[in-house]
């Protein structure tokens, strides 16, 4: 294990950086996607409700690796057959897209549950003052919803981080993919995968601790309510 760490440490660290980059980019897009579909689902517009439900159900019903293959291999071919011959998709772009779509569906459910946890009297009070729906949502409902959402969002962050390993299948040099390279170079399989596992474990443990800490802080905050 020591030998692998000595030889490959900087390479592994760089790929851990790639994993984090992939996770963070996916998470940011997922929050946007999640917010849009959550708002579609909590509103009264039936068409939006339907679109939101279809998105969430469809994405949750497809394995991430299938989604990633579809985007990375399927879409460029589709675009070419439509005449866009210059269309290119890097593994990072496809990976972020697949992860963000996947994570976005779960995020939509987290945000929807957060919004629905806010007493409906809050929205009514805001509307009774003459504030439009969007303003009431932004100034009154969402700030309260976010408090209850934060632990679940960090939890989803951890899940997404682990899911990035699936994207080794489309060749993006994230941690797991680099693990494959190191393993085949050294043939020290036990040691290599133990090191890779350790890398994930350290980052995820730190994130879990952060989630617990935030949860406690929020609990303390709501006790004042």
């Amino acid at each position, binding site marked *: 294990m020591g030998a692998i760490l000595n030889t490959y440490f900087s390479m592994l660290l760089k790929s851990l950086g790639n994993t984090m980059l992939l996770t963070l980019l996916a998470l940011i897009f997922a929050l946007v996607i999640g917010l849009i579909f959550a708002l579609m689902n909590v509103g009264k517009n039936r068409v939006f409700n339907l679109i939101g439900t279809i998105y969430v159900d469809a994405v949750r019903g497809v394995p991430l690796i299938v989604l990633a293959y579809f985007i990375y291999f399927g879409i460029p071919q589709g675009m070419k057959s439509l005449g866009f011959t210059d269309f290119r998709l890097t593994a990072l772009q496809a990976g972020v897209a697949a992860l963000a779509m996947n994570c976005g569906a779960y995020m939509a459910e987290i945000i929807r549950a957060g919004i629905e946890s806010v007493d409906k*009297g809050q929205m009514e*009070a805001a509307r*009774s*003052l003459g*504030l439009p729906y969007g303003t009431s949502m932004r100034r*009154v409902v969402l700030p*309260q919803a976010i408090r209850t959402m934060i632990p679940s969002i960090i939890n989803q962050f951890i899940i997404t981080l682990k899911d990035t390993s699936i994207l080794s299948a489309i060749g993006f040099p994230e941690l797991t993919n680099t693990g494959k390279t190191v393993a085949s170079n050294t043939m020290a399989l036990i040691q290599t995968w133990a090191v890779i596992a350790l890398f994930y474990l350290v980052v995820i443990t730190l994130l879990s601790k952060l989630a617990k800490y935030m949860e406690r802080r929020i609990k303390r905050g709501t006790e004042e309510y």
Partner: protein
Amino acid sequence: MEQKNTKVHVANLKKSFGKLEVLKDISMDITEGEVVVLLGPSGSGKSTFLRCLNQLEVATDGTIIVDGFNVTDKHVDINKVRENIGMVFQHFNLFPHMSVIENIMLAPVELKKMTKDEAREKGMQLLRRVGMEAKADVYPPQLSGGQKQRVAIARALAMNPDIMLFDEPTSALDPEMVGEVLEVMKELARGGMTMVVVTHEIGFAREVANRIVFMDGGYIVEQGTPEEVLKNPKEARTIDFLNKVL
């Protein structure tokens, strides 16, 4: 004598929740400066009626005209009309993530009616009026029920409404806090505010109301001055109800 304006005109209002018809056929006019108290057993439709006036409940049928605006018409900008209708809720519904003064400033600032400074000044003035200026920077969870409701009244007044709706404003309060809230409401009534109040406080109704409307089963059963309705009720259902609550 000066002819007072009609503030609220309700004609043949009906409201159903699914198959349950809560308001069956309500017509009522409310004139400027009038204090109308709605009485009736729970489930009689009082709160629903009140919530229809600012369209927190969308009427199923009928016409509601407030300040000259037909609020049942989908083309009318309901947000504009609501600026003129303050509402106070049974459970206060203060925004817990904002301080007392921020609660009051939110609507005037967001709707660009006032600058932040103007809204703060107006807010402090309103807080003085309800005796809460010392709590301007406190967050609602730290207030007692009576204090919350006084802040809620101040918040509802921030947009300078000329009609105030009260939906059981003292029902969620500890008994010793009812008085302070009713006192603020009396002061408002004396100032000439047009008020529609759903309450079980018969004493308040007797003292402050110009008119008492007794509702049951989605209809107006009887209405008149407090003297008429409380002392000499004509309808059996009114008599029955008053016997139970008085």
